[in-house]
């Protein structure tokens, strides 16, 4: 038996490290948690506080304006359907969680992506970390999230961010690196400062790619909804989770279909945003 004499105590090490983190950095985690709580509370407050017809109207009009008539009609009908199966409030909780997780991912991911595009070292360090973040089974994140942040929606957002942020970083990095070298050279030759180069040339040209990253982040966030519900994030994920525990096929599908509808609406809107930017560049 190999295990008898060759056993790396990785698990105990990680336990010990997490223990140290919990004890010593409690304040840091508390304040991260508080900030995310504030943002999540605000988004949730708006979505759940507003009358359902108003949210439905705004989302449909947005989809119509950005993505066209088809997606606009689909958004209206889909949201009406969600309300019809009695999951409106749960859907808004989930939508708030997804939007907050996406916002946090963008706030952290886009600057990180920009830095990674400028520094080969950071890129080299970040690459394996991102690979781990994306390939590690997402259940595993729940444990430290639980220990460091407790139970509830905020740790749900945090676990979701860990899983969904990598594309935001990667595609920002890629988008900036894809800006043609001679265009960057031209900006420098005319005396652009580093920030004029970034905001005036690199970011605008990388925007379609960055938006594609945001789109992926949103879809990955939605895929975390059920898992996040395991640490008390609630919402549509909670519906599905309860249905699994009680073997209620009908309820399970109700929750699942509502998630799919949200996913399609969000996907069409963000994809269209990315496409519109690109379209303007190419025409």
């Amino acid at each position: 038996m190999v295990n008898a004499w060759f056993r790396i105590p990785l698990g105990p090490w990680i336990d010990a490290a997490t223990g140290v983190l919990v004890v010593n950095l409690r304040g840091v985690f508390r304040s991260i948690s508080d900030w995310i709580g504030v943002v999540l509370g605000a988004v949730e407050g708006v979505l759940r506080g507003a009358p359902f017809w108003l949210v439905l109207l705004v989302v449909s009009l947005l989809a119509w304006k950005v993505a066209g008539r088809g997606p606009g009609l689909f958004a209206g009908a889909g949201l009406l359907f969600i309300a019809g199966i009695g999951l409106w409030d749960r859907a808004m909780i989930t939508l708030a969680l997804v939007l907050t997780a996406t916002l946090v991912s963008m706030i952290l991911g886009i600057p990180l992506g920009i830095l990674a595009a400028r520094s080969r070292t950071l890129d080299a360090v970040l690459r394996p970390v991102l690979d781990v973040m994306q390939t590690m089974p997402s259940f595993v994140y729940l444990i430290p999230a639980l220990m460091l942040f407790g139970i509830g929606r905020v740790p749900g957002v945090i676990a979701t961010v860990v899983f969904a942020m990598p594309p935001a970083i990667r595609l920002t990095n890629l988008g900036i690196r894809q800006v043609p070298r001679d265009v960057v050279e031209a900006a420098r030759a005319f005396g652009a400062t580093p920030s004029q180069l970034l905001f005036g040339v690199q970011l605008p040209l990388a925007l379609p790619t960055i938006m594609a990253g945001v789109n992926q982040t949103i879809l990955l966030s939605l895929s975390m909804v059920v898992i996040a519900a395991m640490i008390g994030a609630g919402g549509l994920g909670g519906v599905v989770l309860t249905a699994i525990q009680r073997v209620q096929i009908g309820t399970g599908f109700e929750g699942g279909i509502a998630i799919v509808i949200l996913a399609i609406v969000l996907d069409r809107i963000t994809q269209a945003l990315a496409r519109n930017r690109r379209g303007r560049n190419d025409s």
Partner: protein
Amino acid sequence: MDSLLRVEQVTKVFGRRSERALKMLAQGFGKDEILRETGATVGVHSASFTVNRGEIFVIMGLSGSGKSTLIRCINRLIEPSAGRVFLGDQDVTAADERALREIRRRRMSMVFQRFALFPHLNVAENVAYGLRVRGVPPSERRRRAMEILERVGLARWADAPIQRLSGGMQQRVGLGRAIVTDPEILLMDEPFSALDPLIRRDMQDELLRLQSDLKKTIVFITHDLDEALKLGDRVAVMKDGVIHQIGAPEEILQEPATDYVAEFVRGVSPQHVLTARHIMQTPGALVKVKDGPRVALREMEAEGLSSAFVVDEAGRLVGLVLADDAVRAISEGRRNLREIAVKDSPRVAPDTLMDDLLPIAAEARYPIAVVDDDGRLLGIIARVHVLSGLVAHRREPADGRKPGEGA
């Protein structure tokens, strides 16, 4: 002539162990040995030249000759490993970030081979980019951009996305973007290489036309010998990072300094590439209309010539006074040179090819005058120069004309 740009012993070595490579270069090792020893590539080795105000200085070389690296060392898009670059009195190589940005914003600009326009900006915004980074307000930017677009013939495309423009038009935008900041020096990195031959010819002519108005100082990179000879007031021939020869086009053709240059220019017939501009000289005897026949005669005497060109106050060519006519006019008491001048002496534009000069020279009884579009006298060409220039390059025996007879 006063010099504007001085490049002194500029060397560029790429790679990690560039220090060691520089030392080896100083000890006289070759490019290949240095690459083998240190893994560093020598891009440019000890290039020195001076560019005079208002001239087009062409750096010509094949790909890999280091010419693109060299031009980027001038505005430090590539940091030279050794050597200095002076723009007027300012040491560009010693400038800090901020001073370098100021130089790039106000004194030097660049035109790129693949145009390198900003795909997210429209034509006018592209032209105005240099003003934008300088913080010029939008309305002023727009006004200046429109002036420039007017000049390069693209005014009605101002609001179009650049993708809608053809290659030639895109490079006009590139040129416009480079002159909108009114820089002292234009760095042009193979600006016409990506264009098809017909458009390239047009753009070369356009550049010469712009240049005769703007009188910029231009450093122009090309791999095309014809282009180098057509545009260059002086040409530097480069190979393997080393400048082999610097000289006027006719010098390069007639007195190649190294075997490489000789090899390069072999088979080039000067009459296909040299133009009137290249071989014209300042007129020996030149008088103004109001000077009268006596002054004209004295001029001719001083220069040992039998005729003198007459220009008006604005420098426009009036005609040619012959010594005999001047003497007769004096004895008859006539004073007006305009009356006695020969008006049908041959005139050519500065970009007339030697090819086209030949028949004119063969027919002409007088020196050929080179005049610009407004009729201003730029220089003269003695018949003998056309003919002897031709003979010097003939490989087959010269045809019946005797090169000795001339003006």
